[in-house]
Structures are given as structure tokens and as C-alpha cells.
């Protein structure tokens, strides 16, 4: 693992010896067995692993949707474990944008209203909310579908609405849990294209995936097995935006264990 370079700001994510177990006693399941992880500002990280490897649990912890059983998690230098319920809601609202595999849009609600929702909770005024929602929908290329409810949108469009919703508060961290898992190849390319552009713009992105095509876009790939980080490979940051495909796949699959 690479430590923080001198002179850089505090890492966006600084996870130390985090564990998470479910259940009690003999039936207890250890989903995370002590994960250490540091992610710097502007990094584009993919977390890979088979199902049951604990990658979703890690994602939920990173997104403040779940709390670790032990260990420390600093988000932007802030110890999340010490926050109360209300402060956690604020953190989720202001610092984290979450994209889910199953889109998780609110039923019977227009795209515009979906995107405005985090701003409503943040207490942004209606006019400002509308302006920023329009900008976010523009960014994902859906300004013409703003008045459509989720059931009137394709899967790819729904995921782009979810992306706009995650981005509209300008969070420090964008977390995506299998964002392309339910999408066809065309929609996958669209969503990945948006993530690339966000990365170029300097946004910190963490993507969970089991698809090499998705991981190939990232400049750093973590591999999780049985609740432990087993590999952490970094491609040369300079080459990240350009021509990723040929280089990526090979080393990722056979990458040496740490």
C-alpha cells in the first residue's frame, strides 16, 4: 500500500484495521477481517472480489451506511465512528455520493425531483436546487428526460439519473457499488464514460465491480478475498485516461499477492 505523500492534503479515505461481523457467537460471520486502506484525493479506485469477499460490506462502511465492528475510519480526516446519527446523515448528504447496482431511485418520482432530493435534505433553496439539478442532469446527458419517472426510463437512463443524484451535492467521494451490474454493454459504456470524465475533473471515485472492463478504467485496483485486501495494484497515473484496455486486463487477473 502506498502511504500519503508529503505535502498532500489528508486522504479522502483512511481505513485502519476495520472489521465487520454479523450475528453472534458460533453463527457469527466475519465479512471484514481487518482492512487497511488509504485513498487519496482524485484517485480512481476499483475494488474487485468474488461474491462473499466482503466488498459490498466494505462499500457500505465507506459510505457510512453501516458501522464497522472495530477499527477506525477517517473520511476527509474526520473520524466517522465518533459521529452521531444526525452528523452521519449530514456526512452522507454532503461528502458522499452513492450509486447502487439496482439504481435505487424513488418510485413515482420524476428524474428532476430525484436529483433535487439530496439538495432538499441539505436545505438548499428551490431556485438553486432546480439550477443545480439541471446542471447535474446535463452532465449525464439526460436534461431532456427530467420529467420522467423511473418506470419511464431505461436501465441505463435510470443509472445516469442515480449518478446525477450522487453528484449534485458535489461530494468529495463518489462510491459506486456494481454500477454497471444491471446494464447492457451500451449503457455500461455510457456510465463508465461519465465516471472517466468525473475522474478527469479530479473527483475521487471508488467503484466496486467484478467486471474487468470496469476495473480497467481505474488507475488503482484492489482485490478483496474473504474480508481481506490481498492485492493493491496501481497503474502509472499518467496513462490512466488514455487507452486503458490492452494494458489492464492481464496483470489484474494474475496480479501477485501482497
Amino acid at each position, binding site marked *: 500500500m502506498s502511504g500519503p505523500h508529503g505535502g498532500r492534503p489528508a486522504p479522502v479515505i483512511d481505513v485502519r484495521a476495520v472489521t465487520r461481523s454479523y450475528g453472534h457467537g458460533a453463527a457469527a460471520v466475519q465479512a471484514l477481517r481487518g482492512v487497511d486502506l488509504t485513498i487519496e484525493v482524485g484517485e480512481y479506485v476499483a475494488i474487485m472480489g468474488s461474491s462473499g469477499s466482503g466488498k459490498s460490506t466494505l462499500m457500505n462502511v465507506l459510505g457510512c451506511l453501516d458501522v464497522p465492528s472495530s477499527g477506525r475510519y477517517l473520511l476527509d480526516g474526520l473520524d466517522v465512528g465518533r459521529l452521531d446519527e444526525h452528523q452521519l446523515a449530514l456526512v452522507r448528504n454532503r461528502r458522499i455520493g452513492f450509486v447502487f447496482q439496482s439504481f435505487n431511485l424513488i418510485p*413515482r418520482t420524476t428524474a428532476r425531483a430525484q436529483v433535487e432530493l439530496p439538495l432538499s435534505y441539505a436545505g438548499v433553496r428551490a431556485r438553486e436546487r432546480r439550477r443545480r439539478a439541471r446542471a447535474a442532469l446535463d452532465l449525464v446527458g439526460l436534461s431532456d428526460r427530467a420529467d420522467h419517472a423511473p418506470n419511464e426510463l431505461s436501465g441505463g437512463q435510470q443509472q445516469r439519473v442515480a449518478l446525477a443524484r450522487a453528484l449534485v451535492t458535489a461530494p468529495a467521494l463518489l462510491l459506486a457499488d456494481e454500477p454497471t451490474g444491471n446494464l447492457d454493454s451500451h449503457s455500461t459504456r455510457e456510465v463508465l464514460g461519465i465516471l472517466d470524465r468525473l475522474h478527469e475533473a479530479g473527483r475521487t471515485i471508488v467503484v466496486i465491480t467484478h467486471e474487468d472492463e470496469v476495473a480497467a478504467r481505474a488507475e488503482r485496483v484492489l482485490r478483496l478475498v474473504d474480508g481481506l485486501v490481498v492485492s493493491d495494484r496501481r497503474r502509472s497515473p499518467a496513462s490512466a485516461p488514455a487507452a486503458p484496455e490492452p494494458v489492464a486486463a492481464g496483470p489484474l487477473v494474475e496480479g501477485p499477492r501482497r
Partner: protein
Amino acid sequence: MNPVEVLRFAVLGLAANKIRTALTMLGVLIGVGAVILLVAVGNGSSKSVQASIQRLGTNLLTVSHTAGGGRFGAAGQGGTLKDLTPEDARALVDKTLAPHVKSAAPVQTTSQSVTYAGQSVTVSQIVGTTPDWFATTNHDLGRGALFGADDVDSRRRVAVLGSTTVENVFGTENPIDKEILVGGVPFRVAGVLRTKGGNGAADSDDTIVLPVTTMRDSLTGYGSLSAIAVQATSSDDTTLAQDEVTSILNNRHRITDSAQSDFRITNQQSLLSANDETNKTFTVLLAAVAAISLLVGGIGITNIMLVTVAERTREIGIRKAIGAPRGAILGQFLAESTLLSVIGGGLGVAAGLFAARFEVVGITPVVVPSSVVGSFAVSVAIGLFFGGYPAARAAALRPIEALRHE
């Protein structure tokens, strides 16, 4: 997050399932409407009974004979009971012994058939009395003239008819100065009473009033009077007047012990309050039934809110994941249940007030303002209280648990 936003989310939430929302509101509507209407019906019936008692005069005392009064008196029934006589009635009007008695009229009642132009009609109440009776019992003259004291003294055969009797006997013909046969005895019609309006079964306008002397001479004989109608100087003095009447009659009938008493005094005022008690019980009973339906409406809200929360757990998870604070979730669901109960309750008030404008089983409902305010307040409180539990449960969910819910 401002209250307008919370309200907007609540309205959107309710609009998402219109039929369920409408049915829940209907439950509250029926509850609130029923409380208002049933309390109004109870109140209305109480008011109408009170009004009819008041029409008789609240300062009226009725002295009746213990043996019930009768044509042939109680003298035959053991000999100890003395008759109520017209002299007793006269003795009650005494400025020194009975300063609170304004007037006293002997009342002799019977039932006879009346014949006019060969047609015979039965009149339910024929009253023999003195002119004081008209004022004492609030009977006003409609047409013609009442009989006077000299008519009583000289035993003239004159009659004053109630409006229903006039209609039954004469139809549209003018009855004044016509001759009718009452129990075979000819009487001249002197006047017609103003319509009083009946209450319930007995039509108080189906009556004939005759001078008591004439009546005892020719129709009923000289037994005990049916009653003596006594008017107190005011409705506040009825108790004093009652004491005075009791002492005069005890004296006249030589009664030393109340067990020997051969007369009974009923007081309209006490009748009124007794009736009031009965009606209060009746109203409370109706209100209790209505309150149960209101409670059922409240349970309906709780049920719907529980279902809503269960059904939308995932949505709650999404909202929490994008940073909804606990207060916003709680506010949204509380606002939904409160809206349900406020709109349902409001419509219930409207429905109750509307229905109270119609007669219900012969009773004109009189809306009690406190029942309107009370039932509306209770419905809103039910919304807040019963909606609060599911809302609090929803708000307390951890985002990841809520998100995993299917």
C-alpha cells in the same frame, strides 16, 4: 429541510396510493361525522322535550289527587281520602297564606264524543276549568272569545275548542257561535285556541275547554277534581309555592302526617331537570358509540401507516443513503398521517354539519359546537399519536437495513 418540503413529500406520498388514502380518510370522516351528528341528535331531542315542557310553563305546579282523580271521586275508596274540590283551588289563591301563588285553576278532565250536524267525533281531552287555566297553562286565544268568570258562576254552556278539534268537527266551517253536543249536552262554541303544536303521541290541540261548573253539573258529577293547576309567581318561586300549597291543602284536608296525604304535587321545573338527566345519559350513550367509530378510524390510520412504512422501507433506506436526517423521515410520515386525519376530520365535520341540517327520526339535530371542535381535535390527535409510532420506527431504521429490505 423546511416544513413546506416536508409537507410536499407527504402530499406526494399520499397521492401515490389514492384509493388507500381515500379509504383511510373515509374511516376518519365517518368517525368524526358520526360524533357530530349523534351528539346533535341527542341534543336536539333534549331541546325539543325541554321546549315542550317549557311551553306548558315552567312556573306551573300540578296538584293531583292520589287516587288519580275520577269522575266519582276517591270518597268511596276507604273514606279517609278527601276529594280535591273547586273550593280547594279557590283557597290556594291567598295573598297572605300563599304569596307565591299567582293563580290556581281546578281541572276536571273527561273524554266524550262530540256531535255536530249529525257527525260524531271522539275528543281525547275535555277539560273543565276556570278562566285562570288559560294563562296558567299557556293556552292563548286564536279566534272568538274565552269564557269568563261569570260564565263559570252562572254555569253557562259555552266551550273553547282546540284547533285540531275544530278541524275534526267543523272542517273549514267557521265554528264560532255554532252549537255542538258534548256527551249529548248542547254547548255554544265561544272561541278557538291558538295551535300549540304537539310533542310525540298526544295532540295537545285536540281538546275542548268548558267551565268547570257546567261540566260537573252535566257531564262528570261532583267527585274529586282531576287536578288543580297552580301558577307560581315566577319559575324561581315554584318550590316556595309548592310548600305553601302543601300547607294549605294539609290544613284543609286535616292531614297531619305525610303518609296520609291524599294529593301529590308535580313541579314542571323538576320534570324539566329530570328530563335533562335522562337526555344527558342518552347523549352520552350516543357519543360513546360515535367515539368508538372514531377510534376505529384511528386504528385504520395506524394500520395504513404501518403498511406504508413496511412497503416503503426500501425508499426510506434510499432517502437515508442520500443524507435524509432522521427528522426529515419522521416529519414526512408524521405529516402524512396528520394530513390523513386533518383532511378526513375536516370532511367529517362538513359531513356531520351537513347531515345535522336534516331531521333524523323526527328529531331536529342541534349541533353542539364543542362536539365539532372535540371530534376534530381528537381525530388530529389520533393521526399524530397513531401515526407517530410507525413514523418513529421508520426514522430509526439503519440505512443499510432499510436498503436490504425487499
